[in-house]
């Protein structure tokens, strides 16, 4: 298996870190926003991988490093379960757990009730 280095998330340089909230939408709570932005910067520093290179570049670089030497292990951890996964019915059964109909109906009812609540933040309305 290639790549035994630990995650480089905490090893990335921090000098060029950008605020996580770089695109705050206009808000009446502007004062709060700026403070939040400061906090967000703090979180970024705490949590790591805000680097000078983008996530996309990072993935690209990673691919370039590993693509020519991928060694897929001879055994897969779940290989011994393969024979248990031929039977179709157990899977189907699992996806139709007991009580799914009532759970579904209850959620629809709750969702519709919430839609009429003034506290629901997102109101989706039909076009009619």
């Amino acid at each position: 298996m290639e790549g035994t280095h630990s995650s480089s998330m905490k090893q990335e340089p921090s000098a060029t870190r950008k605020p996580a909230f770089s695109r705050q939408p206009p808000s009446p709570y502007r004062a709060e926003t700026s403070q939040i932005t400061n906090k967000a910067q703090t979180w970024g520093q705490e949590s790591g991988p805000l680097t000078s290179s983008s996530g996309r570049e990072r993935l690209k670089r990673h691919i370039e490093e590993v693509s020519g030497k991928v060694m897929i292990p001879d055994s897969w951890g779940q290989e011994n379960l393969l024979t248990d996964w031929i039977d179709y019915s157990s899977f189907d059964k699992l996806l139709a757990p007991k009580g799914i109909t009532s759970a579904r109906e209850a959620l629809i009812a709750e969702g519709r009730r919430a839609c009429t609540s003034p506290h629901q933040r997102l109101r989706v309305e039909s076009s009619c």
Partner: protein
Amino acid sequence: MGSSKTIVWFRRDLRIEDNPALAAAARDGCVFPVFIWCPKEEEQFYPGRVSRWWLKESLVHLGQSLKSLGAELVLIKTHSTVAALLDCIETTGATRVVFNRLYDPISLVRDHNIKEELVELGISVQSYNGDLLYEPWEIYDERGHAFTTFEAYWDKCLHMQMEPVSHLPPWRLVPAAGTVMKSSVEELGLEDEAEKSSNSLLGRGWSPGWSNADKALTEFAEHHLIDYVDCRLKVGTSTSLLSPYLHFGELSVRKVFQCVQLKQLLWAKEENLKGKESVTLFLKSIGLREYSRYLCFNFPFTHERSLLSNLKYFPWNDNQVRFKAWRQGRTGYPLVDAGMRELWATGWIHNRIRVIVSSFAVKVLLLPWRWGMKYFWDTLLDADLESDILGWQYISGSLPDGHELERLDSPEIQGSRFDPEGEYVRQWLPELARMPTEWIHHPWDATIAVLKAAGVELGINYPKPIIDLDLARERLMEAIFKMWELEAAARTSNTNGTNEVVVDNTDDSENLAIPKVVLKEKVTCLTNSSNDQRVPTNQYSQNNPAYRKRSKYMEDERPQPDKLHNDDNVVGTSRKDEDLSSTAESSSAKKQATSRCSFSVPQYCSSSEAKPMQGV
């Protein structure tokens, strides 16, 4: 701010922005954020290695953010989620539990049971939509029925009104005091020692966590969205790379939608055709993610009419040697092998490749689809139950707009279309690095001299094809005939037992591929969607199984614009619209022979494309 104490139960909503449950709790008083890890309740869908790695990293990230806001994220490992919640309630004196909704069948039932139990004990429980643009019961046709085709569904969605939402996180969290048996992130056991070396590879390429998701969205929208239409055409390119973030709820889909809509407005004003096409395609992939939830929720699995029922009688070839060759990227078909190696090394593959490798496993190797699904489940960073189900339906013939079961694509031809220069194959298969482009996707046809010059020794340093495609086609057709026999026998047996009449090809609702699902009893006014009427009434036929044979799949293999993936292949708007329209119509007309249960879905939501929707 009120004075109540609320447990905020985090699940796949690992963010602080646009998190309705967190916002509601913060508004009303003290909060007690908790993430509960209960492997027992995950059952067979216990997350795979890479998913668990992502989850672990994301929890660390979220925990730091919540701490900065004032409340610590409590991690609990347990054998019973409800017991853990009750423990939190008892220790904090909380009177309310809030969470954002999940729609997969397993979560749906679990959440319902938990809610009932808590409510019985006098606890207030409220759930919110933090995962979707539109919840499954909000979208229906003019008769109040659930949609059964993606195009009609998405068209309706796009005509819905959506109030802008503020994505700002809570300014401050007031913690609710309480002492519970909490765990460290390591103690959750999301990653065992044996997995750490493999996972470290992932850590070099990916950055989980909500603020990294935010960065990824910004970067995509500002720099790569414009090229989305091109990225879909070529393997080896990155699409949005947002799917894992969306799966774990590190990114709000509403935020993504609104961000992209702004670009849409801008590019429309500038008459930027490519930009407009890219936005339309990208939003469709978001729509497919929504649709996977919509289908699973509105047409839940039943024993009588499974979403994948046509696979029930398929005579799989449980050949572990073949499975291993597929898994290790040693099938001798370069495009398939390159895809499987990329999957292992990065935890992510392009939508196209997902379709190609999963179709190869099922159609060429006849491997049990669950093997493929389980392997994807274990290796994809964006593994997602609803998307997976949609994807396997797509390639297995369960969807009129998807592949027919008898369709078998040639990796060689797929390679010439989606990796014309062979760059992707060369990148992941160094043993073929010097192979001329002409032969890169079918080295077995090259002369000895060409192979020698390229340093390729088939059967030595690169495998010979695991099976000849013509033979694979024969085997596939044999398997399909066998499946029909078994299905017919089972139906006859069932009919005899119940004394019912089997009616084929009628408009009888009993015999409809998809039962009607009424979401609204009476609709008083019509929508303005012209596509709402595309609900199939008669899309399947099981009375004539033997019709399409070789000629059909031979036709499918011609290197022509892929009608099933037309959205991926748009060259111009008019061309795309034409394709989409013709595909929808033809799929309705052609009648599924292989499935009694034919969901009408999108042109590109495979398991493959299913993740893709995520894989946006």
